[in-house]
């Protein structure tokens, strides 16, 4: 019965839940600046609008999971290159474990469909 809006909202909530995990995962491959991250996440349709990323990055960084350095760009403004901190790696490992657990639980619950 739930209308399209509700379902959209639920989907957005699902994406939102794993977004932080995915950002950390992207950065675990090496340092990146926001546009890189956006590109990767957009490819897999994890984010719809780019604006979503910035508040999230700021928050994760303020929690101490990320650090960044400035780098001049030959075209356009200077870029912020983000890297995972030690704390960030720990958080990523924890989230990965939690994710696997969650996937198993969800699969178990929904396998009969």
């Amino acid at each position, binding site marked *: 019965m739930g209308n399209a809006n509700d379902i959209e909202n639920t989907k957005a909530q699902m994406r*939102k839940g794993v977004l932080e995990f995915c950002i950390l995962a992207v950065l675990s491959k090496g340092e990146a600046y926001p546009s890189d991250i956006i590109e990767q996440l957009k490819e897999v349709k994890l984010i719809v609008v*780019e*604006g979503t990323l910035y508040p*999230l990055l*700021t928050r994760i960084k303020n929690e101490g999971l990320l650090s960044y350095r400035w780098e001049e760009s030959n075209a*356009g403004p200077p870029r*912020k290159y983000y890297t995972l901190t030690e704390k960030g790696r720990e958080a990523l490992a924890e989230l990965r474990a939690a994710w696997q657990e969650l996937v198993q639980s969800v699969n178990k619950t929904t396998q009969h469909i």
Partner: protein
Amino acid sequence: MNKTLSINISGCIFNIEEDAYQVLYRYLEDIKSYFTASDGREEIMADIEARIAELLTERNAKPPRVVMLSDIDAVMQAMGRPEEFSGNEQKSGAKQYSTDEADTSYSGRKRVFRDGDDKLIGGVCSGVSAYFDIDPLWLRLGFAATFLFFGSGLLFYILLWIVIPEAKTASEKLQMKGEKVDINNIGKQVNEEFERIKNRVKSEAKEFDKNIKPQAKNFVQRVVYFLEDIFSGLFGLFKNFFAVLIIFIGLCMLLALLSSIFGYSNVVHFNIDGQSLSYSIKDLMRVIFNNDNQLMLTAIGLFLLIGIPLLMLIYKGLRVMLNIKHKNRIFSTVASVLFIIGLVIISYVSVSMKKEFEYREKIAEKICIPISGNTLCLRSETNSSENSEEEEEETSLVFSKNTFVQINDSSILLGNIHFDVVKSTDDSFRLRVTRLARGENAKQAYGRAKQIDYHYTLTDTTLVLPRYFASGSFNKYRGQQINLRLYVPVGKSIFLNHSMEPLLYDVKNTSNMPDDEMTGRLWTMQIDGLNCVNCPPPKKEQSRAEASTEEDSAASTEEY
């Protein structure tokens, strides 16, 4: 043709068309306002601006190097609306949201309007009940009930009618029926207010840090704004409380005024000999004023003089409480004019009444009191009925010895009788009765004095003086008064019964005893004045004195 502007985004210079600039500017402001309270707003803004600069740079790689509306649209498409950010970013978004809500609910707060669509008289009841979210029926019944109380409810209704504007536009009608205002919401509003102040303080402090160095000139200004914000917030909290208090006090006083002037509620009470008498202001005024016209005029004058300021007080209170901004100049003008009319009426009545009291005349007669013994007993009586001496002391006399007691159509009873004692020149008791009255002229005053009806009685050795005298066929108070002077020969005595106390008026005696202590004692006239025979110690001597007077009277009857 389109004007272009040169802007700097994140250190990159862009030429941008004016309309595109307007859209971009508004978009950035939107985002910025969205993150006001969230931590790291500046950083988020910088990041977003950097990204926008990047996107614009990509799009402007080839000429013409001008940012156009289509470019901004594409950027906004990619970045998304601020609401969409929050859809995916719960934490800061939620926090942000609550403060935003507080802001909007504050500015779009519910207001009182008269409901023109649902009205019996002026739509006051339906409007007010919409404000408090109750059934207008109860309010209407309440008002109908108060109409019966000297019309005070009617007055209040008219006042509300004047104060509260009618909801005319759609938005006003919505505001009228908006979020209900009950105790919970008022509490919520108070909290929100605090929250608002707190946030203001926070963000203000942040701005402060940021701007303190480059903009030292603005420092003082900032402090002033900052304090203004806090004080206006706190003022808002207490304002309503005081407004309610003022309205309540004003209404009580107005009701009291109306009921005492126009109603029949008793404001003066007498308790005479266990008999209780009460009079309203109207009764008392009837005794003074010549006719009902004058009486009515005074009532109206008093109402205008006292009632109008009270109404203005209530009006101000209502305006503050109901957050009414629009001014009603006609109302305050009419109120001022009415107040001045009241002043003129009262002045006129005062002057004309003063004339009524201009002249004073007196009629005196001196009569011999023939008694055989040496002691004259004095007592006072209220009526022909038996008086009880104990209760006389408790009589509550509002105007002291100047009391009106019994008022009927033909005559009034007055209590201002002054009694004193002096030395007689010969060897017999004498009483001088002086009747006084005032009037517009001497003749009138004399006539009124003559009408005063005062009869004392002498039984054996006891002189009974009535406590009150009748004004005669003239039933208005015009300064009528009785002065009684008792002449006592040297060597003879008088006994003052307790009932004489209200009549005594500065009776001279050798021990300089005040009037209220002189009763219940035996006094002998000597060369130097009245001398207390048996004063110290008072209690014991008093009973003996009474015994002796009884003996005296017994002796005198025997002699007869």
